[in-house]
């Protein structure tokens, strides 16, 4: 059992840990400040979304092992996002009711500036065979969050936090609390946490009445809300000297408005696009029938997350995690995440990374609606026979791979700079919804596979 004499082992870290354990602390407390900053540059293929996101977080650690942390994130997004309409063999013009209203107003006022500004937004055209994108997507979002960690008696720790996020058409407020307990000489930690979120959506075009024509301009109000409650129970266990593992169970309940106010679905008759009976004949362009999507008012999710971190040699590590999620919208997903931390001579580290993701489609996901089965029309009245429907690719079936590499360089005692590059690409796994041969929708792509890449820069300093 006694080790043979090694050449002067470095014991300060172990001694510090042992001393903290004897004095009844759960970890060596170091008082000080920490500032972490980062920049995300995100880019999607096919001229879709682009985003630049700077973030700064400041943490103050106290001698009694409590800490306060605040974080500020700015998000600037722009670009194109699929609007839910199906790819067709004919060009499609999409008009926006408010866009038309503004344009008409501008023309009445003879306001050249307004005409120029809203001219584009009144309508846009998607060429035949292309995925319809709403190009005028631009948003700036600010998120601020604060978190307070405080150790209590008997190995308990309390964590309280809140966050506030605002963007042009969306505001979110959340509070969270978690309690954890260390057992078995700190080899085991049990934790229980809860998050309450309240969101308000206020699109500039108002909340559209679901499953109604996009040019009918039926409104369900100017704002709507949703509330989300999440509960997480976790076990963190030191398995061996080299292996730490965490198992989390979460349940989530979301109630309220889930529809995306900017997304709709094509209605097809035997695979052919139909003219919208409400067509108000704007500049003699044929406008087809599209209905705003509708999602259930309730969503319950359950997930299991298992993460393992294993130290390799003295300074390397491997991180493997798996998450299974299932919800009552019919979506099941599996996520596998692998990262290897390679320390290069103590000068810098490399982290190659791979992530595999797959999800099944929501029950109400469909690439388009069928006249007669899903929707019936009588004159100008349009009735949907299906309660819920969405063509949002985020609710479809697909798998995705992410490959990435990060390089981190520590320098000057407690400073670190890092650069990470990742590429993401989705593969369609949906069941193809066939349309009769020769029709507008026959043989067209039904899922806009997303490809994106991003660069993350990071800089941290502690003192």
């Amino acid at each position: 059992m006694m080790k043979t004499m090694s050449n002067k082992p470095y014991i300060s870290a172990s001694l510090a840990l042992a001393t903290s354990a004897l004095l009844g602390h759960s970890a060596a407390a170091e008082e000080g400040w920490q500032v972490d900053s980062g920049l995300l540059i995100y880019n999607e293929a096919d001229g879709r979304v682009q985003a630049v996101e700077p973030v700064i977080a400041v943490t103050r650690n106290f001698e009694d092992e409590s800490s306060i942390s605040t974080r500020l994130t700015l998000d600037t997004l722009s670009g194109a996002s699929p609007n839910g309409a199906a790819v067709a063999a004919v060009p499609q013009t999409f008009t926006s009711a408010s866009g038309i209203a503004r344009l008409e107003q501008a023309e009445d006022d003879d306001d050249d500036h307004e005409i120029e500004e809203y001219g584009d937004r009144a309508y846009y055209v998607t060429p035949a065979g292309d995925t319809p994108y709403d190009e005028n997507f631009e948003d700036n979002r600010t998120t601020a969050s604060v978190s307070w960690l405080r150790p209590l008696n008997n190995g308990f720790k309390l964590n309280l936090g809140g966050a506030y996020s605002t963007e042009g058409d969306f505001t979110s407020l959340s509070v969270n609390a978690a309690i954890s307990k260390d057992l078995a000489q700190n080899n085991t930690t049990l934790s229980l946490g809860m998050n309450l979120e309240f969101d308000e959506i206020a699109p500039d075009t108002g909340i559209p009445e679901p499953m109604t024509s996009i040019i009918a301009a039926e409104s369900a109000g100017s704002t709507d809300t949703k509330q989300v409650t999440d509960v997480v129970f976790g076990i963190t266990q030191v398995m061996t000297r080299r292996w730490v593992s965490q198992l989390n169970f979460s349940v989530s309940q979301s109630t309220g408005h889930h529809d995306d106010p900017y997304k709709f679905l094509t209605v097809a008759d035997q695979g052919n696009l139909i003219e919208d009976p409400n067509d108000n004949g704007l500049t003699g362009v044929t406008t087809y029938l599209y209905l705003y999507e509708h999602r259930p008012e309730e969503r319950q999710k359950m997930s299991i997350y298992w993460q393992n971190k294993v130290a390799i040699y003295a300074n390397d590590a491997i991180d493997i995690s798996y998450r299974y999620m299932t919800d009552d919208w019919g979506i099941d997903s599996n996520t596998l995440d692998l990262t290897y931390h390679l320390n290069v001579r103590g000068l810098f580290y490399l982290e190659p990374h791979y992530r595999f993701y797959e999800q099944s489609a929501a029950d109400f996901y469909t690439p388009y609606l069928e006249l007669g089965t899903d929707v019936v029309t009588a004159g100008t009245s349009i009735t949907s026979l299906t309660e819920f429907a969405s063509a949002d690719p985020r609710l479809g079936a697909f798998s995705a791979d992410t490959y990435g590499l990060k390089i981190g360089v520590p320098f000057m005692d407690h400073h670190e700079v890092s650069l990470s590059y990742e590429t993401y690409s989705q593969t369609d796994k949906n069941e193809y919804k066939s349309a009769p041969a020769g029709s507008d929708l026959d043989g067209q792509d039904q899922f806009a596979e997303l490809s994106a890449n991003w660069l993350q820069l990071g800089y941290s300093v502690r003192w």
Partner: protein
Amino acid sequence: MKFAPFIIATLVALMLSGCANVKPWHRDLLAKDHMALDSDPLQSAFNDHIYFSKEASSGGRGFGGGGCGCN
């Protein structure tokens, strides 16, 4: 997922048995920064946000700081 309850119970039992009662002086490796379960919270937050806005799943590790209109 009929086997789910069985798999979960096995995982929990495995976790709590902890294989060996790891002695305090043996936690030196685990105390290193890169061995923390979330060694780069800002990067995790960026990634979680990206996946939350492009996929139907979210969370796992805990819960994020604030919702967005992106999903």
